[in-house]
């Protein structure tokens, strides 16, 4: 026999619990979805961080600096970046995985994405940026533009680092290529890695400090 039977008020709570368990579910669903999404993302980030730690590769000095969300917020504030106002839109199309061999970092993968410049606000500053992207450099030794790519929650605006990127331009008039290096769990398939990168709950963004432009990547 249960020694602690519910009191009258508690019984009312139980009655309410039983009768309302399946009612008003749609109203409450949004808060549940957000919790599930945030917790899943946190677990995924932990898993990826574990993979990165295991890989043990320092991709860029900015890695450590930008690892925490607070530090990203600080960087945003210092540089006065308004992530809500992208000045450049790159439409991400097809992709391929480039074989790389880091013997001590098996989790590191390199994906190449073909990007199309879709949106360019009409201002001289951004035209200069376009030039910068179109002709990345006359010097073949500086064939790409290094950028840090972030992911930004569409609901909270929170940001975390997605990976280290290099914007390349193979041929004049041709598309831009984003080369992205990131550590993934070893058993994750390429398709799952791409799904992870293109998660619709987030915006993929980068900042080009040379011209103060916020680059928004749009996944097809």
């Amino acid at each position, binding site marked *: 026999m249960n020694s602690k039977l519910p009191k009258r008020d*508690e019984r009312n709570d139980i009655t309410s619990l039983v009768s309302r368990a399946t009612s*008003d579910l749609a109203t*409450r669903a949004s808060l549940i979805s957000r919790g599930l999404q945030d*917790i899943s993302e946190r677990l995924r980030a932990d898993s990826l961080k574990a993979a990165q730690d295991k890989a043990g590769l320092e991709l860029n000095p900015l890695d450590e600096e930008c690892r925490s969300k607070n530090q990203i917020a600080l960087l945003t504030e210092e540089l006065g970046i308004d992530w809500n106002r992208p000045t450049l839109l790159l439409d991400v199309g097809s992709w391929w995985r480039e074989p790389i061999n880091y013997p001590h970092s098996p989790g590191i993968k390199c994906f190449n994405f073909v990007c199309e410049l879709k949106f360019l606000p009409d201002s001289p500053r951004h035209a200069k940026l376009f030039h910068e992207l179109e002709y990345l450099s006359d010097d073949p030794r500086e064939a790409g533009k290094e950028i840090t790519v972030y992911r930004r929650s569409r609901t909270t605006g929170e940001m975390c680092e997605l990976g280290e990127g290099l914007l390349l331009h193979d041929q004049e008039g041709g598309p831009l290529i984003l080369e992205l290096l990131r550590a993934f769990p070893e058993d994750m398939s390429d398709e799952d890695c791409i799904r992870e990168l293109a998660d619709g709950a987030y915006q993929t963004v980068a900042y080009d400090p040379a011209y103060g432009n916020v680059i928004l990547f749009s996944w097809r």
Partner: protein
Amino acid sequence: MQMPVKPRRPEDAELSRKREELAELQARLAELELQLLTLRLELAEFEALYHAKAGHLYAELDEVEALIAERLAKIRPLDREAAESASSARRRADASRQAIDASLTLPPPVSRSQTLRDLYRAAAKQLHPDLAGDDNDRAIRERLMTEANLAYAGGDEARLQEILEEYQSSPDTVVGNDVGAELVRAIRRITLTIANISKVEAGVSSLNSSEIYKLKTTVDEARKRGSDVLGDLVENLRQTIRARRQHLQTL
């Protein structure tokens, strides 16, 4: 003197087989109904806990975000985008507040013993409304089944026992009919019970694919690995709310 053995009529044998079949199906249905109710209660209890811990923080965060967006819209009266952001943030904050108002109150924790589960199974088998002989019997069964659900939810073994006794002593449970009618009744009850098993299985399956089930499973599995993901979420939300409140004060 040896008594002559009365030969068993074929319809008696068939009735006996049908009753056995029905008893097995009713036992399965009772087990499934117990599973469904237990799952529903566990999810409702978890949901109440979730809203008490994290849900109200989301609502608070949305309120702060709405205030920030409204403040920005006021600062930039000609900025249409700012005005749209403000009204969108306000809609979201209102929806979250409504969600919290509709959330479940967290009842005291209840432990459900094996005896309680056995009693509930017995109640589900005996009281199922689809087994009613007539409308009056159905009304009694429906009332008692609702009471049995509440007693199970509250962990009240004594009340469950009372409910069973109340029904068993009811004059409505006494029936007398010929074999033919009993056979037809048994066949119809079998059909009804099979249909109910499908319904309850669908209910369990639907709950198992719900977001609240996924959330509970994620939290439970993380706990087994020694990680308090719900606690981390709460802490993260609190930090975000603090930071956003500070930002609001600077505007």
